[in-house]
């Protein structure tokens, strides 16, 4: 008996294996040059780390992954050309990529045309799935609505009798979306709040002394900013030198990725967002074995802790792996076609290093949001987060088919009661 089952099992496995491709050719597109490489490099590091690990353990469902990395530089026009080259010349099976919203919006229709599953891992524009339906394009990270609504909820929890707010955001789409949504959320949750200043420095301006003088003079209760990378560090350091953080409470919706760069200089009391719940000392999952292993391995290889772009990339890869496994179950062991893989992505619920992510039927992922306030402690050479607040997905993300701004305007002060106190 045993032998018959044994032979049948071996046959079954060999048949299944026989249809397995030699490798999964995975295109990875992220910034390797220019100012945005401050996101791109940590993301690439996370990809290298996980792919090495998985390949050493036999790959995804037994098939090794062959990454083909492309620099996201050169603008939307160049990236569309590179996407076509990846698909038609490098014959990739799947693409994970795109930090810039312009690149996401440009590449998505091309992915549909060439029928290649594409996972957008970081770009924050809310519009992409609100204006159009895709079959091959997914996003495994939340978008600007999460960061702005969560920021508003956190700010009002910390400072219930908030009176005045101001915004300093880079004059480009991400900055505009972030501020528009934050302002709408605050006013929806507390209609009597006054906006004293909306400042729009040039992207990569790097020099904010005039804006800081204005903010110092106006003394708003809260200053909101979605600045990132070198601009964020410049703004913080120029503000620090003149006591901006003493006069107003500053909210940095994408602050998490620059905490290690700012080191000891960043004071306590600054509100930090992590574009999702990506924090290596996550209150619930910092001791989770898989998470701890990832953080340790990342720190060993790259000398720094992973930041939210690294987590966003890990989410995309974890989603890919689960989708392959789910698709294989659906096809009964036959390697899935691209369409089958795409169908397997919809409705996927995966466990990530810091929490869980669900991919809705509009292909947009929803995840919890984490906000906290900085604190300098002896254990770490940079500010870490305390008074953290974990906000559940459906409190911070618009439902399927509703435009972010319209949904944010429907928020009412009562929502605040559903929000736990930061601990």
């Amino acid at each position: 008996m045993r032998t018959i089952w044994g032979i049948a099992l071996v046959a079954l496995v060999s048949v299944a294996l026989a249809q397995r491709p030699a490798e999964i050719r995975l295109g990875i597109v992220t910034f390797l040059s220019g100012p945005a490489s401050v996101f791109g490099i940590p993301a690439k590091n996370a990809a290298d780390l996980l792919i090495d690990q998985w390949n050493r353990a036999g790959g995804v469902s037994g098939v090794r992954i062959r990454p083909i990395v492309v620099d996201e530089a050169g603008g939307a026009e160049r990236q569309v050309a590179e996407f076509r080259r990846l698909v038609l010349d490098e014959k990739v099976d799947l693409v994970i990529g795109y930090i810039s919203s312009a690149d996401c919006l440009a590449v998505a229709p091309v992915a549909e045309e060439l029928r290649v599953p594409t996972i957008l891992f970081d770009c924050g524009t809310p519009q992409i799935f609100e204006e159009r339906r895709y079959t091959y394009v997914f996003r495994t990270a939340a978008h600007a609505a999460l960061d702005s609504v969560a920021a508003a909820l956190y700010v009002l929890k910390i400072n219930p009798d908030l009176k005045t707010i101001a915004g300093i955001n880079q004059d480009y789409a991400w900055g505009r979306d972030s501020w528009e949504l934050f302002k709408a959320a605050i006013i929806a949750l507390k209609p009597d709040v006054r906006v004293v200043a909306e400042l729009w420095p040039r992207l990569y301006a790097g020099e904010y002394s005039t804006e800081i003088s204005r903010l110092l003079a106006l003394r708003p209760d809260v200053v909101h900013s979605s600045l990132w990378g070198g601009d964020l560090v410049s703004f913080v350091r120029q503000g620090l030198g003149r006591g901006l953080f003493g006069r107003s409470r500053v909210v940095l919706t994408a602050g998490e990725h620059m905490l290690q760069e700012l080191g000891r200089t960043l004071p306590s009391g600054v509100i930090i967002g992590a574009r999702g719940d990506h924090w290596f000392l996550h209150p619930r999952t910092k001791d989770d074995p898989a998470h701890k292993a990832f953080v340790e391995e990342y720190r060993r290889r790259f000398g720094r802790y992973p930041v939210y772009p690294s987590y966003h990339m890990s989410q995309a890869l974890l989603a890919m792996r689960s989708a392959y496994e789910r698709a294989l179950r659906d096809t009964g062991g036959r390697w899935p076609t691209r369409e089958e893989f795409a169908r397997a992505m919809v409705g996927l619920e995966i466990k990530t290093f810091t929490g869980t992510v669900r991919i809705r039927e509009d292909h947009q992922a929803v995840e919890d949001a984490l906000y906290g306030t900085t604190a300098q402690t002896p254990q770490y050479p940079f500010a870490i987060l305390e008074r953290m607040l974990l906000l559940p997905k459906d409190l911070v993300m618009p439902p399927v088919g509703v435009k972010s701004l319209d949904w944010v305007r429907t928020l009412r002060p009562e929502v605040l009661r559903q929000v736990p106190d930061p601990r």
Partner: protein
Amino acid sequence: MNPLLALFDGLVYGSLLFLVAVGLTLVFGVLRILNVAHGSFYALGAYTAVILGLWAERALGSGWLSFPALLLAPVLVGGILGPLIERLVLRWAYVRPEVLQLLITFSLFLVLEDLQKLVFGVQPYFLDRPLQLLGAVEIGGVPYTRYQFLLVLVALLVLFGLRFLLRATPMGKILVAVVADREMAQALGVNVGRVYAVAFSLGVGLAALGGALASPTVTIAPGLGAEVIVLSFAVVAVGGLGQVEGAALGALLIGLGRSLAVYWLPELDVLVPYLVMVLVLLFRPVGLFGTVEVRRL
């Protein structure tokens, strides 16, 4: 909002713009070359200043040493890179038509951008020791860092220093002569080759000085150079190409324009440099101080 603050912020930003752009106008004045690679020397100045500052603090233990580092960086960058690039690349550019000169420096910019990335990597650097050591002071209820006053002071020093150099020292007079009439200066036995090398190195040094002085406030990361180029073009075009005083006025105009925008019309912030440039060029195409070259029949 008392307007005094807007004026002071405009002055500070203008000073920084002047320090960034004056090297560009000097190089054009003498060599008649618009150096698109000017932004790369700015970035190299910033990188060198930060590396020297960090090393000085670690090795010699005192933060105050970061100030001399700010001044040493431009000397190194200008002294080493200036003659090297002038000899290797620019020497061939002088005889070329104007359009090719522009493209030569544009290509030089592309090369330097990647070399900078290979040498300094992509992660951001910063050293704000000079900012912290000087502390802040309050004016009209708004704290300003003393470093900002230092910037204004240094800008004035560089402006009057250059004016003194160009007007009173023998080397300066030769530079002015070459600017006025290259052929005549050559006919009078001026070693124009050496003058070019000195002028270009001085231009590179000034660009690096701009970068070094800005380094305590901004973050040094890839792409720093590209942003500065168009901004310094605007300053130099408004002031009049080749005119040091022109660059000072151009920088002040754009600086004040921007601070007025931030205080009253924030939406215009990103447009100010180019609007000022277009407006001035439309009414005085040679810039406020520029001179028209009349073709001799």
